[in-house]
């Protein structure tokens, strides 16, 4: 039991550091696209230290405190039920049969908690952003859920570990090749999930400055930033497990999650953002149809 | 400009002058101004209002209002001037002719204290906020004295009138000349 707890701590530390480093690397890459040098790779860590070093902070009530807590709980929850490395006892976390559903629930849990917390912040921009975020979230959940259902039908299991196990062998047994339609639907949903353009209207700094966390400062913000590392890492690992054959070693995990994240980043730097209504129409259009097709194809 | 000559008698235009081939100025009674502008806009093709502004003449106790209208067909601008009294600064509003006129009138009310009854929102503060002094663009308002009294001037700033400065540099023994204004 104690060994398991130590393993969990180790694996959370790994994903936090990797998630934040990935953020730093991405900033650097985006800066290169812009023609800039960009911030140092370790900048996210400095930012977190700086935010926690603020001497004063203001609160707007209990829910305001709990918002970041929910958020980080959502991030941790997502992460803790995903096996990071296939076949590794150390990085298997709490994976069990049926964890796909728990993970999907946790992905949205954090956002709901954040919605309550930032709503109590009382800033009108937070409220607008929360409305936008929840609307957009329920839209991109549809293709993602359809895609996961298609996988469940395909592999006849609800366990991430089993899905990964079924993809072992050659590269052509990855879901990416065995079920391309589900993969496409999920990747499009991931664009929405990662909040890069064109689906970043929730945090659009030109319209509603920074969105839900408008009122959060100091250590609250530090917590949200830490969560960004964990949650990003967790989501990417989930996608890697479900569609890209999982990973058996840490370097493989790093390379795969990096490549998956790059899809979001490259789409992000080359598109402006959709309005909320436009992005909802987008998600409920072709991606949903692709998802439905993926489900039907494997049902038959 | 022959168009203007037709209007001369009807609107008792007292003074008309060509500054450039594409720019003329006319002066009209305040009472006839709105009617003249309406005719210029709707019949004579002066459809574009460039600006409305005021010039302060405290010596004669008057404001000169200038309405610059432009005719795109003949590429001719016409400055329609009118003179109103400084004490009872009142003028007819032309916000029904051009949408942007109400903004200019709001500014004139705030900066010169010229009232345009009926103009929408003319009493709302436009640029200044919490201003308690006289209308600041009037010439008898001394901005420098106000600034020095209010805004903690940093000591050590040397301000020299350029003419006095050059004079003291070039002709140190010369007695300063009288201030020309």
């Amino acid at each position, binding site marked *: 039991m104690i060994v398991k707890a130590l393993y969990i701590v180790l694996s959370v530390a790994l994903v936090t550091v990797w998630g934040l480093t990935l953020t730093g690397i991405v900033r650097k890459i985006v800066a290169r696209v812009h023609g800039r040098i960009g*911030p140092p790779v370790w900048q996210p860590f*400095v930012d977190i230290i700086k935010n926690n070093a603020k001497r004063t902070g*203001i609160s707007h009530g209990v829910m305001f405190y709990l918002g970041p807590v929910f958020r980080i709980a959502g991030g941790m929850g997502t992460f803790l039920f995903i096996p990071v490395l296939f076949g590794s006892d150390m990085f298997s976390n709490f994976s069990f049969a049926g964890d796909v559903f728990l993970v999907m629930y946790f992905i949205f849990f954090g956002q709901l908690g954040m919605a309550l917390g930032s709503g109590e912040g009382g800033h009108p921009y937070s409220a607008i952003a929360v409305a936008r975020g929840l609307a957009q979230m329920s839209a991109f959940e549809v293709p993602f859920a359809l895609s996961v259902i298609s996988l469940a039908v395909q592999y006849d299991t609800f366990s991430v570990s089993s899905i990964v196990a079924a993809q072992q062998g050659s590269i052509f047994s990855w879901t990416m090749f065995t079920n391309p339609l589900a993969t496409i639907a999920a990747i499009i949903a991931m664009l929405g999930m990662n909040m890069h353009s064109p689906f970043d209207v929730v945090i659009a700094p030109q319209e509603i400055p920074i969105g839900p966390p*408008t009122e959060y*400062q100091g250590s609250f913000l530090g917590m949200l930033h830490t969560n960004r590392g964990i949650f990003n890492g967790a989501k990417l690992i989930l996608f890697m497990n479900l569609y890209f054959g999982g990973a058996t070693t840490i370097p493989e995990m790093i390379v795969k999650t990096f490549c998956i994240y790059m899809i979001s980043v490259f789409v992000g730097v080359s598109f402006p953002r959709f309005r909320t209504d436009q992005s909802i129409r987008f998600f409920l259009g072709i991606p949903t149809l692709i998802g439905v097709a993926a489900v039907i194809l494997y049902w038959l | 400009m022959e168009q203007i000559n037709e209007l001369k008698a009807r609107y008792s235009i007292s003074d008309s002058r060509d500054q450039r081939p594409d720019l003329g100025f006319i002066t009209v009674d305040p009472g006839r101004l709105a009617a003249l502008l309406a005719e210029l806009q709707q019949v004579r093709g002066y459809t574009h209002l460039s600006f409305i502004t005021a010039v302060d003449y405290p010596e004669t106790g008057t404001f000169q209002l200038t309405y610059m209208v432009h005719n795109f067909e003949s590429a001719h601008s016409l400055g329609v001037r009118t003179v109103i009294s400084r004490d009872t600064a009142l003028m007819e509003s032309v916000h029904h002719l051009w949408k942007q006129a109400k903004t200019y009138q709001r500014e004139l009310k705030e900066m010169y204290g010229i009232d345009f009854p009926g103009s929408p929102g003319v009493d709302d503060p436009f640029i200044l906020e919490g201003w308690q002094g006289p209308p600041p663009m009037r010439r008898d308002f001394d901005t420098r004295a106000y*600034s020095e009294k209010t*805004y903690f001037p940093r000591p050590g700033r040397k301000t020299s009138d350029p003419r006095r400065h050059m004079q003291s540099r070039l002709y140190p023994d010369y007695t300063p000349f009288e201030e020309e204004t």
Partner: protein
Amino acid sequence: MHNKETLPNLGLPEHERDLFCDARPRVSKPLASYIEKFLNWSRANSLWILAYGTGCGAIELRPLFTARFDISRYGMAPRPTPRQASLLMIGGYLSVKTLKRVIRSYEQMQNPKFVIGLGSCTVNGGMYWDSYNTINRLDHYLPVDVYITGCMPRPEAIIAGFEQLKKRIKDGRAEGANQYAEQFDWYKANQKKIITDWNMPDYNW
């Protein structure tokens, strides 16, 4: 009714007074020196600038944020909300109307916070020294850490100013927020002298 600890908030209407905080700003003591040194290092290397272009100085901030001068190299980034920002750049002259908003933005920032005055007009009024609507000395209204002179200061000068500010932060001298709390009454009196329609709380947290 009010004692030394609370603020009267006389500018607010009676029924709104209990909606707003009436606490005075507090002085936050720095921690033990070695911890503070580390924290100051992190503060100096992660300066988030409040994206409030208050004057024509804002025009030179854009080349700074973008590819030509790229201050993100130094860990700086624009931040759209005052809650999260730590550096307020005053981009030149401040009209009375803007000063009111600037004070509000400044007070919403969290300690430690820094102020850079950009351009000669923040130092002594500069070109607008005799204008009835622009302030002459910024340091009478807000604690200024670094002044960068020029009209406009070049981006290189602004980067040099940032370096100066970083040095001050690392040395532990950039305690503007504490100074503001200590001399709160003096700053408030100066602010209220020119903002005659004070219709906000005396201190906006």
